[in-house]
C-alpha cells in the first residue's frame, strides 16, 4: 500500500483520462438515444443526461462554475422548457416517421460527413499546448472579472440579444383581448346576476 498523496501524484493524469472515458461512455449513448428514441419526450429527458455528462467533463477540467451553470441552465432550465413545450403541443408519438424523399439518406450522409470533417479539421488544425500553470483557485472571480472587464461589450451585446428574444417571445405569445374580463366573471360564477355585473362595470 502506498501513500494516497503519492498515488495521486503519479496517477492524477491517468485517473482524469479514465474519468474522461467513463463520461464519454455515458454521454455518447445518451446522445444517440436523443436522436434514435421514438418517444420524443424520452429523448428530451435523455438530453438532460447528455448535459449532465458534459458538465462532468467540465468538472474534470477544473471549471467548477461552468459545470454548475451547465447543470442549472442547460440540463434543468432549458431542457425542461423544451420538454414542457413538447408535452403541451402534443406531438404524435405513435407516428411512424418515414423518410420523405428517396435520396434523403444520401443527403443526410453527405451533410453529416461534411459537418464531421469541418469539426475534425477545426480541432486538429490548431495546436493545443499543455501549459504547466495551475487553474485559478477561484473560478468565479476570474470569470466575473473577465465578463465585466475585458469582455464587457460582447457580454452586453449578448444580453441585448436575449432581451430582444424575450420581447419577441412575449409579443408572439400575447393574447389579443377578446372580451371584457367582467363577462368571464359573471359566466364563471353563475350566481352573479346581470345587475351585479353592470354595477361592477359602472364601478370601473
Amino acid at each position: 500500500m502506498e501513500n494516497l498523496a503519492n498515488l495521486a501524484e503519479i496517477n492524477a493524469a491517468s485517473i482524469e483520462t479514465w474519468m474522461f472515458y467513463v463520461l464519454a461512455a455515458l454521454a455518447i449513448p445518451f446522445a444517440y438515444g436523443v436522436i434514435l428514441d421514438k418517444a420524443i419526450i424520452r429523448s428530451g429527458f435523455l438530453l438532460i443526461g447528455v448535459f449532465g455528462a458534459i458538465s462532468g467533463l467540465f468538472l474534470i477540467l477544473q471549471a467548477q462554475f461552468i459545470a454548475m451553470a451547465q447543470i442549472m441552465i442547460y440540463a434543468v432550465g432549458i431542457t425542461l422548457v423544451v420538454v414542457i413545450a413538447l408535452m403541451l403541443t402534443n406531438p404524435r408519438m405513435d407516428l411512424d416517421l418515414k423518410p420523405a424523399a428517396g435520396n434523403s439518406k444520401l443527403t443526410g450522409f453527405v451533410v453529416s460527413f461534411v459537418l464531421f470533417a469541418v469539426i475534425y479539421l477545426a480541432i486538429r488544425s490548431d495546436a493545443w499546448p499543455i501549459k504547466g500553470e495551475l487553474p485559478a483557485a477561484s473560478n468565479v472571480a476570474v470569470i466575473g472579472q473577465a465578463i465585466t472587464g475585458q469582455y464587457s461589450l460582447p457580454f452586453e451585446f449578448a444580453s441585448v440579444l436575449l432581451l430582444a428574444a424575450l420581447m419577441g417571445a412575449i409579443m408572439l405569445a400575447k393574447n389579443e383581448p377578446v372580451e371584457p374580463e367582467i363577462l368571464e366573471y359573471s359566466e364563471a360564477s353563475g350566481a352573479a346576476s346581470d345587475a351585479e355585473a353592470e354595477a361592477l362595470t359602472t364601478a370601473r
Partner: protein
Amino acid sequence: MGNASEIFKFTRLSIIWLCLIFIPVWLVAYAVGIFIPYFLIKDQQNIFFDVFQALVPIIAVLVFIPINAMFMVLFERRGLALFTVRSGPNRVGVDGLLQTAADAVKLLFKEDITPRGADIAMFTLAPITFFAPSVFAAIPLLAAVTNDHPLFHIVNLPTGIFYVLAASSVPVVGIVMGGWASNNKYSLVGGLRSAAQAISYEIPLVLSLVSMCMMAKSLDVVQIANQQAGGILDWNIFGGGALRGIDKFIALNLVGNTIDAKTILDAAYPSGILSYIAAGVLIVCSVIMFLLYLTGACAEINRIPFDLPEAESELVSGYNTEYSGIKFAIFFLAEFTNLFIVSSIAVVMFMGGGGNPIPAWLLDPWWPSFASSVGPMFDLVTAKGLMLVDEHTFFPALWVIAKTYAFVFFAVLIRGTLPRFRIDQLMDFGWKRLIPLSLIVFLVMAFARVLVNVHLVMPAGGAP
C-alpha cells in the same frame, strides 16, 4: 393555555427525536472518520486511512436523511394537530413516538405497483432523480453547519452555495419525469405545474441568495457563515453585515477601551450620514430578500401555500398519484429532506450559521464564568485524546440545529395557516410581483453596498 400539556408533549417528542437523529449520526461519523482510522488502522501511510476519512460526509448524510425524514413527518403531523386542536398520532410507542417508524416499515413492505402503459424505465428513474440531488446538495452545507470540522472540511467547495443551488434545481426533472411516465392525466398536470412553478420561483430565490453572496464577497458557505459570527447584529438578515460597525462601537464603549471609538465608526461608515442611510436601506433590503427567499423556497419544495403539484383536492395527489411502496417512500423522503436543506440554507445564508444570537458584549458581563465552567467539561472527554466532542463544533452545531428546526416549525405553521394558491394567481404573483421586486431590491443593494464597509474587519491592533 388550554393545550399546555400538548405543547409539552410536542417539545418532549422533538427533543427525544433530535437526540435519536444526531447522536447516531455523530457516532457513525466518529466511527468511520476517527475510530477506524486512528484506533484500528493507525498507519497513516495506509491508503484506507484516507479513504475512510473521505467517506465520512456521505455516510453521515445517508444516515441522517432517513431518520430525519421520519422525525420531520411526525413533527409535522403533531405540529398540525397542535395548531388545529387535535391530538395527532399518539398511539404507537410512547405517546406516538414511533408512529412514523412504523409507517416507514409499512411502506417498505407494500407492493410496488407499476401501472399499465407506464414507461417503466422512467417510472423507476423518477424517484431516484428526485431523491439523489438532495443527498448531493446537502454535502457542502455540512462544512458550514459544523464550523468547518476537519472531517467535513473536504466538502467545503469554493463554489459552495452555487453548487447547492445547481443540485437542488435538479429534483424538478424527477417530478416531470414521474408525471409523464405514470400514464395518468393527474400526474402529468402535477408534473407540468411543478416545472412551471419551479422555474418561475427559482429566480427570486437565486437572486436573494446572490445578494447575500454579493454582500459577503464570496460563494463559500463556510466563509459566509463565519463572517456572521458575533451576535444577532452581524447576521446577514440585518443588512448583510452593515451593522457590524455599530456592534463593534457598542462593544468598545461597554468595555471602556482606550481606542477612540470614532475610528471604528469611520472605518465602517466612511461617507458620514450617507453611509448611515445606506446601512438603513441595506437592512430593509435584506429583510425583503429574506422574505423573498422564504417564499421562493416554499414554492421550490412544493409546500403549502404553493403545493399545486400535489393539490389533493384537484389532482388526487399530483405527480406521485401512481406511486406506491418504496418509490412513494423515496418521494416522501426527498420532500422532507428538501425542506430541511432549504431551512439550513436559510440558516447559513441569513441567520448567522452556527453563530450565537446573543452578542458577546451582552453575554460576557452577565455570565463571565461561562467559558471557564464549560471548558473543563470538554477537557474531561477530550483528555484521553478520543476527539469525541469538540467545542468548536459542538456549540455551532447546536445553534444550527435549533435554528433549522425553528424554520421547519415555521413551515409547518404556514401549512397550518394559509390556503392554497390558484395556479394563475401563483404565476402572476411570481412573474409580476416577486421577480421585479427582487431585481429592484438587488440593484438597490448593489449601490448601497458601496457606501458601507460591510463585515468590517478590524484594523490591525484595533481589536480588544
